[in-house]
């Protein structure tokens, strides 16, 4: 089998902030609510606690984000998505849940640098000053759905794979040198 290929093959752009595509990254959509053993099942996969509403719990290259009252996004190494689903299925067997591999359905970017937030502030109707630490914000980037959270020296941005190039071009255009907001 071939090596998995991310949407843009690791494209990068350097402006007043740096934009780079990362991935492929393992991602599992977990839909469940009020299910016994949920926190333990998630912890076994991501090593994190179950996040509070609108938050993401990050542990190294693994994370669990709150997507909606009955949906979580599990982030982990690409090769582990299948095993993660098997583990969740075993732990939650007999209860109502859905775990789906969406590793290949996403494009993931890093926007890095002191002014990384300005790049996103041109695309998303989000008040960055009011963004809580560890907040996973689902919104739109210009005309498509996107989600991001602050991490390290910038943000991790997730969108659908088919619009990966659109979002990369948006981020690059917003990050062009000379277009700093302040």
């Amino acid at each position, binding site marked *: 089998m071939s090596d998995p290929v991310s949407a843009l093959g690791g494209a990068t752009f350097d402006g007043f902030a740096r934009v780079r595509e990362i991935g492929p990254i393992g991602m599992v959509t977990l839909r469940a609510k009020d299910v016994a053993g949920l926190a333990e099942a998630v912890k076994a996969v991501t090593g994190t606690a179950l996040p509070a*509403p*609108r938050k993401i719990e990050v542990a190294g290259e693994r994370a669990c984000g709150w*997507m*909606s*009252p009955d*949906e979580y996004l599990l982030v982990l190494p690409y090769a582990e998505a299948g095993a993660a689903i098997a583990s969740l299925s075993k732990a939650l067997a007999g209860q109502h849940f859905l775990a789906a591999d969406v590793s290949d359905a996403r494009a993931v970017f890093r926007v890095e640098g002191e002014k990384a937030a300005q790049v996103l502030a041109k695309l998303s*109707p989000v008040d960055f000053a009011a963004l809580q630490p560890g907040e996973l*914000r*689902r*919104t*739109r980037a210009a005309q498509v*759905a996107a989600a991001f959270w602050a991490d390290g020296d910038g943000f991790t941005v997730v969108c659908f794979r088919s619009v990966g190039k659109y979002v990369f071009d948006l981020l690059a255009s917003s990050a062009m040198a000379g277009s700093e907001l302040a």
Partner: protein
Amino acid sequence: MLVLECPYCGVKAEETELSPGYEAHLKRFGPGSSDEEFESYMFARKNPKGVHFERWRHVYGCGKWFLAARCTATLEVFGTYPAQSSEPPADLVAKIKAKRPDWKGYK
């Protein structure tokens, strides 16, 4: 451009992050219903000038449908609440009545 607070995730979402779903609290009429009942479900809409109950979906957010009470004339928002409500919450009804004494109720 409206801002509505999603009752599920608490995001104060602007209109571009939402998609509209028109009038709330409609009763579905399926097979066995009369023509009048089906018409009321499918076509008859209140379209009031004043207090109105609507469905909205936080489509560029948590994806949940919610309901909102607002004034169609002034765009004052009285409140939002989960879609899993067969009628508006009592405290919201009381709040609207206090602000709009002439309001005849949501039905």
